[in-house]
């Protein structure tokens, strides 16, 4: 999309000195925080399958999922160094800050990708390895190299990469990926847009500066708030389906139901708020476009609340599934 490409300015990246790169800088390339979330959802998928698995092989499967996620992170940081250097949130990353050379980041990503997929395939099974390979390629190539800079739907479609770890975990445990595994994928997939758009509502200016076509940058804050509400209205019922299919038990039902009600309330508040209006780059050109300071503050708060609660909601649902699997709580099958 030439318009977007033209929006991306040249960066003045400091020259990297590979001689002083520390091992911690390389570790940062793996996005450890994202990695821990992926490990958590992957482990939940593995245990929720409720299939006996050798503990060593289960640990290897989780390690491979973590390494695969880390590899995706390194490839993403290599390719996105130009735009990462333009945003406050990302300019301290190892490549744009000049701590690690881009080539070294790419090499680490490729090596870890091959290592994690081959090890998972040989130690566990090739369905899990194939899903991991698909996840890495989808995140590093389809999302990072293509969707992120091209479409406002970048995080919707790209969210699939972040959603797949439970299916990889399930496949590692059972050698198959049935409906319940994909329900967990669907939950994360539908959770991603309201989660990221809530964040983007209050850091829109940064994305605009880097030329990343996030929804609020291109379509405006009002449209984004509506999309957040629509996705939330789809997400919450989907989060309840595991109790129909024999995946979630009573604890899960309580967490998904009560949390879902709060999620919808917060999404509705964002919809009614002025969140993102202050940061809308087109707002400055409008004489009649007046937002009071109070409304700006309230809007940002509504978006921040939804963003923070979305993390808690997803974590609580997966923790409930994990807890029920570990404790052997019988799952509900309300459809039968």
């Amino acid at each position, binding site marked *: 999309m030439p318009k977007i490409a033209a929006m991306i300015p040249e960066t003045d990246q400091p020259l990297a000195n590979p*001689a002083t790169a520390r091992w911690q800088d390389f570790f940062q390339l793996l996005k450890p925080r994202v990695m821990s979330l992926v490990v958590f959802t992957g482990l939940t998928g593995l245990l929720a399958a409720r299939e006996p698995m050798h503990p060593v092989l289960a640990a290897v499967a989780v390690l491979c999922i973590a390494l695969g996620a880390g590899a995706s992170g390194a490839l993403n940081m290599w390719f996105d160094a130009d735009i990462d250097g333009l945003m406050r949130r990302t300019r301290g990353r190892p490549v744009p800050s000049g701590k690690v050379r881009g080539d070294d980041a790419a090499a680490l990503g490729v090596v870890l990708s091959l290592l994690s997929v081959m090890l998972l395939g040989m130690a566990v099974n090739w369905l899990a390895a194939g899903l991991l390979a698909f996840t890495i390629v989808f995140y590093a190539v389809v999302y990072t190299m293509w969707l992120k800079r091209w479409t406002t739907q970048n995080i919707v479609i790209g969210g699939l990469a972040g959603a797949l770890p439970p299916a990889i975990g399930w496949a590692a445990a059972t050698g198959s990926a049935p409906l319940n595994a994909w329900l967990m994928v669907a939950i994360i997939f539908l959770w991603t847009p309201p989660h990221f758009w809530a964040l983007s509502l209050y850091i829109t200016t940064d994305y605009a500066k880097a030329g990343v076509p996030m929804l609020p940058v291109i379509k405006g804050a009002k449209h984004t708030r509506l999309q957040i509400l629509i996705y939330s209205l789809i997400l919450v019922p989907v989060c309840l389906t595991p109790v129909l299919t024999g995946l979630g038990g009573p604890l899960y039902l309580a967490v998904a139901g009560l949390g879902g009600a709060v999620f919808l309330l917060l999404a509705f508040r964002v919809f009614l708020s002025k969140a993102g209006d202050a940061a809308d780059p087109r707002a400055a050109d409008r004489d009649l476009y007046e937002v009071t300071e109070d409304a700006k503050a309230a809007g940002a708060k509504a978006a921040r609340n939804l963003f923070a609660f979305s993390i808690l909601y997803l974590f609580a649902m997966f923790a409930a599934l994990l807890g029920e699997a570990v404790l052997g709580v019988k799952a509900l099958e309300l459809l039968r």
Partner: protein
Amino acid sequence: MNKLVEDDAAAKARKGRNIALGLGLVAFVLLVFVVTVVRLGANVANRPF
């Protein structure tokens, strides 16, 4: 940086990288060994004589 003389920061960073890489390699070797024992062990027990 002079090509022939390595400064302290670079030497310290290189040492850290080498240790991390070494530990990573040892961990990988151990992992392959343990996985082999686990997988082979099950197959040996079930082999048809």
